[in-house]
């Protein structure tokens, strides 16, 4: 780790192919700044990405990275972190990736509480497959696969995380760059699973959940007048269950959280192994006497 790392060190020389104005630009910049700010550099950082426009993030960042198959980013990231606790692991993906095909893994990653950061670029639509509704789309949202509205309730990812025993639950808005960066930074610093749902508008396929909409709707729980105690579970639950408003900030944090890999006693990277059988290996055989 070097203290001189700048956020641009995390930029790859690939130009993003995201649509001009896509929320993912801001989401990614905030992540890079937060990584640099927390003292990481590309050689100790591992970015795992899902599939979707959002999943392209690994390509545009410079670090060790793995771009998985659709919906499986969290298990991938969990494996990386458990095998090498020295790495800073960031997992990123879309709302479809994380809450639809990967919903099962989401719940279990939350309850396993591996020390990594999960950033979901929530645009309430499937971007890469060109505009079908997603699990966070509004109930009557009209898309190519829901011409008469979705007729399905949107999931509440924060509530899912809370119900699964989440230890760090936050939400940010990609164009509020300062706050977004701060929130991701706090997620990185959290010991355990740091979950940040980021409103990251799709300017091409979603004309409902737009920048203007979020700018007006967002309430920052970090504001002084709001006076939110993030360690107060009941308070957090009330805010999270309130679907009338769009909240930004750290809604809940369990300060006693300890990452799963630490609780399992993993201290060293698993990269080094003996050149032959480990010493005393014959004892393993003798167990079968």
């Amino acid at each position: 780790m070097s203290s001189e790392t700048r956020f641009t060190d995390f930029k790859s020389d690939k130009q993003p192919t995201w649509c001009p104005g896509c929320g993912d630009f801001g989401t990614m910049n905030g992540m890079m700044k937060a990584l640099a700010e927390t003292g990481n550099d590309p050689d100790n950082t591992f970015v795992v990405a899902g599939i979707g426009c959002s999943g392209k993030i690994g390509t545009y960042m410079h670090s060790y990275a793995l771009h998985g198959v659709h919906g499986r980013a969290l298990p991938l990231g969990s494996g990386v972190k458990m095998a090498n606790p020295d790495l800073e692991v960031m997992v990123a993906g879309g709302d479809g990736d994380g809450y639809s095909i990967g919903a099962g893994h989401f719940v279990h990653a939350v309850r396993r509480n591996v020390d990594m950061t999960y950033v979901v670029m929530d645009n309430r639509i499937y971007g890469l497959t060109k505009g079908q509704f997603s699990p966070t789309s509004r109930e009557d949202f009209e898309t190519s696969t829901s011409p008469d509205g979705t007729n399905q309730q949107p999931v509440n990812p924060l509530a899912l995380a809370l119900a699964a025993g989440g230890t760090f639950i936050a939400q940010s808005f990609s164009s509020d760059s300062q706050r977004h960066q701060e929130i991701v930074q706090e997620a990185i610093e959290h010991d355990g699973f740091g979950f940040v749902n980021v409103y990251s508008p799709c300017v091409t396929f979603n004309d409902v959940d737009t920048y203007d909409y979020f700018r007006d709707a967002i309430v920052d729980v970090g504001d002084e007048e709001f006076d939110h105690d993030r360690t107060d579970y009941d308070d957090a639950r009330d805010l999270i269950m309130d679907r009338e408003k769009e909240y930004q900030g750290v809604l809940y944090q369990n300060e006693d959280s300890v990452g799963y890999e630490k609780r399992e006693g993993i201290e060293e990277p698993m990269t080094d192994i003996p050149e032959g059988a480990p010493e005393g290996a014959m004892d393993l055989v003798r167990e079968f006497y």
Partner: protein
Amino acid sequence: MPEDLNWAVGGEAGDGIDSTGKIFAQALSRAGRHVFTSKDFASRIRGGYTAYKVRTSVESVESVVDRLDILIALTERTVDENLDELHEDSVIIYDGERSMMSDFEAPGEMTALNVPLKRLAEDAGGAIMRNIVALGAACEVTNFDIEFLDESLEKRFGGKGEAIVDNNKEAARLGAEYVREETDISTPYDLETTDSDYVLLNGDEAIGMGALVAGCRFYAGYPITPATDVMEYLKGRIEGYGGIVVQAEDELSAINMALGAARAGARSMTATSGPGIDLMTETFGLVATSETPLVICNVMRSGPSTGMPTKQEQGDLNQMVYGGHGEVPRFVLAPTTIAECFHKAIEAFNLAEKYQLPVYLTADLSLAVTEQTYEPEEFDMDAVEIDRGKVVDEDSIEEWTNDKGQFQPHAVTDDGVSPRAFPGTTEGAHMSTGLEHDELGRRTEDTDMRVQQVDKRDRKVDTAREQEDFDYREFGDPDADTLVVSWGSNEGPMLEALELLEDDGIDVRFLSVPYIFPRPDLSEEMQSAEDVIVVECNATGQFADVVEHDALTRVERINKYNGVRFKADELAEDIKRVLGETAEVEA
């Protein structure tokens, strides 16, 4: 065939059949006798017939036969289920004081030995020990020194305190005493002992042990019969080496966790069975395109779908060799004995890392759950070699960077193998993806690069064919006109079938093949034989298909797919039948 004794304990699932059988098997092993065990079990925990069978001899035994000499029957159904295998010298030990067995009479000439198992167990301290009373009785009937049973009981119950051990020993003693003093049985059985020291283990355990000594540090899995033993073996042991076993939420997660760990530089494995392999198949492609070393253990059971989860089959060959969309190289190793499960597990890790690809390590249910005795030296730890392949560090990484100083994890090389940098290596940061990529690992749809990367990945297989010894094991008469080929657990029964056939004047050359892909070239052997017979536990002959295709020779097939493994005598008859048929055709 060795002078052997066949013994079984049977009852309802939940009767403690497994541990009773295991205690006896271990006592025999302690007494320097060879043991081969098999289990008949149904896919339920309580109720349903279940049996644990032990075949023992002073010589090596590697299969089951259709004969039972001693049967401890906790239910009458146990006797019915095994009627075909019982003979006039068989002894059935049962408890006539149990209401459900009170009217029991031995069928035919065989001896029914009524021992008040429950009552004697209560005298020793608790009815739960009735199976141990039966074991004591069985020792007496077979003239087997009960001290070895004591040793086995100490091993089994030592952790529960001296009192429990003593009670169990007392229960066994009461059982033996009862037979000696209260009955007038005389049997032809005499279990002699030797000075040999054997170990007794099953295939799943051998795989787990092989993985551990090979440096596997990360295991993620989801429980499934018959692969769960691998996970249970590693759990509680891997931690001592700085590793971890993670019980994932499903197989999708398990293989992805294992893949993540492998990319982070750990030797990593997951184990499952057929349905789990199906779920893993999408990620299997990612493992292969991202060129990540990973060992995927498939302990086969009867399919398709949920099939017969506790029954034998070798039906997943096509899935392992061809499964997945698109085309990706993979290796498929299939040990043929329990000891081979250990050796092939080590080899699987070395191959995975040397060639940076997924390696299927497959055992069939019969190998996985049956136990066999071995000389401990069979598991020679000094011979274990670890080869991590082309791993680069900060000093050597420069060799593999492009003119912009970027590391090329998918560099196109002559041997098809690229350099590998563990995360944390300075200047090694790079991307891995399931998308087609260039030498840097970045997405590309460039037509030339696509072809170069596909060819590069395929070249690994050619390189491996040159560098590795993908050989077969050969038995029988090398000059025989009849060639039998098989894979997996069929080797054991086939070895005994060879002896039976020889007794009948039929010479057979037998090749047992532990490499399914890449596999040894058998064309010369097959073309020079008059009759080629492929033996396997599936209906369609999946292995027969591939070797037939390789050698451009028609083969005869012996397939068994009723859920039960081959038995030696049955296999010998099958081979005779096939040879008889071809002889007729030729005449």
